[in-house]
């Protein structure tokens, strides 16, 4: 373990913190923005609570468009926007902006799928009882979809860990970037291996935690 000098230890720790920042912050933004988007997408669908073809198609199209752009291209394409939001176009915070946008589109689609899994009969039953649309959203859709929503968050977190490796392109740092720069470009396979093992452990932990939470929430 001669390569694991105190300097390298610091680098690893910094990279881990950067990854945690990028993934955590962009996931938070994705959940906060993605849930309302998914709800609008769901309730405006044909035969749903507030069918609206125009809104549904426009929103669905926008989400698909963002999801079709390869992340590395999205990152550079929105640099002007990033500069407005983050005040800079390089660094960890700057990398978080495109990550958040990509993750929002991604999670909105996953959330929508989870909402669609809710038995329409439950919505019908609530309507028959005289529930308002807001009550149906909060007391039926969100509650019954909770396990699916948590599973969607887990998948998004895991994907974000992977996406964040590309953040090095804009100087975002993080574990993936460390692996590329030291492990690959400076030919230090031990660093690469350490990074990969760390990432595997992180992903496993996230997935297990998510699964545990889903089990807790599932009463079916």
């Amino acid at each position, binding site marked *: 373990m001669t390569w694991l000098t105190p300097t390298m230890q610091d680098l690893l720790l910094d990279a881990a913190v950067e990854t945690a920042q990028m993934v955590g912050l962009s996931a938070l933004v994705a959940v906060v923005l993605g849930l309302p988007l998914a709800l609008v997408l769901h309730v405006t669908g044909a035969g749903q609570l507030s069918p609206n073809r125009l809104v549904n198609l426009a929103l669905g199209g926008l989400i698909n468009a963002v999801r079709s752009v390869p992340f590395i291209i999205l990152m550079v394409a929105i640099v002007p926007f990033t500069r407005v939001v983050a005040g800079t176009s390089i660094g960890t915070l700057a990398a978080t902006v495109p990550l958040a946008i990509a993750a929002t589109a991604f999670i909105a689609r996953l959330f929508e799928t989870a909402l669609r899994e809710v038995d329409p*009969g439950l919505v*019908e*039953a609530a309507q*028959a*009882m*005289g529930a*308002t649309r807001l009550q149906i959203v909060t*007391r039926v859709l969100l509650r*019954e979809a909770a396990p699916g929503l948590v599973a969607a968050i887990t998948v998004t977190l895991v994907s974000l860990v992977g996406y964040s490796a590309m953040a090095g392109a804009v100087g975002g740092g993080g574990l993936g970037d460390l692996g590329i720069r030291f492990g690959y470009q400076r030919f230090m396979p031990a660093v690469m291996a350490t990074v990969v093992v760390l990432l595997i452990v992180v992903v496993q932990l996230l997935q297990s935690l998510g699964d545990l939470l889903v089990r807790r929430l599932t009463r*079916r």
Partner: protein
Amino acid sequence: MEVPIAAPPPLVRLDGIRKSYGRHAPVLDDVSIAVQPGEIFGIVGRSGAGKSTLLRCVNLLERPDAGRVDVAGQDMLALDPAALRTARRGIGMVFQHFNLLSSLTVAANIAFPLAIAGTGRTQQRERVRELLGLVGLTDKAEAYPRQLSGGQKQRVGIARALASRPSVLLCDEATSALDPETTGEILDLIRGLRDRLSLTVLLITHEMAVVKTLCDRVAILDRGRLVETGAVFDVFTRPRSAIARRFVAEVIGDDVPPGAAGRLPPPADHEECRVLRILFAGPNSTRAVISEVSRRFRLDLNIMSGRIDEIGGEPFGLMAVAAYGEPAQIDAGMAWMQGLGLDVTVHS
């Protein structure tokens, strides 16, 4: 149940209901029914006949294209969204697949309509306790739907439908997902609740057995049209339409065993063998008609099948006999039995 001469205004009245989706044949084509307070009214039909859509027109889960919907004297189609939600609280609904929230306990499911209506917690708890007792699930309050049998889930569904003290209960194939024994229990429960709470029940089903044991009146729906409406006893004993006869045959059973007619001995010279279907209903249903007709008209009667049943508490008998005798005597015997009010037809 006989509808009294001076009938009270119907609690549920659908008038000239029409509904179609796109350019397809109409799902409902000018359907009118009137449900009297306190009665159990059944709508029966094959799948796709439109009965589910018709039931949903009562609480406007489906909006008819044309027609009028009155519930408890309210013109439902004239209500604004807020008033409609309030009106819906007076109409309970039970579903084939129960439609319970899997994330809530039994008690919370039953309290759901109260919670959305803004009823206080203490009152909710009190009412849930009453309802659990009413449907016999007091020990399951904290269970989740997943842990219940189908029959128990439907009891929860019924308790939930009754939480807001509705005057009308709509049942959408409430027993179709249940086994026969559980079906019987649920039907008993619904009848008992009607008697105790003076509920009015409108149900749809494809099972004539449900109509026979539970309903007072029945309407038969076929491809979006109402083909027959009447007291259950009348429809069962004297079905007028072909589809009603088929539905009735499902429950009453075919009166002549298939192939039995072919094995009958041939009639003697100048005689005839005619298979008669005799329906006993009303005051003469207990009279010894068979031996009397045999004596009076010198007929030999070979009983092929016979059964006594009860519909809505009224007894009726159904018998198939092979009558041997001179054709004129058979005619006279049939006429005599018809004169007693029995329904006698020649089995083809």
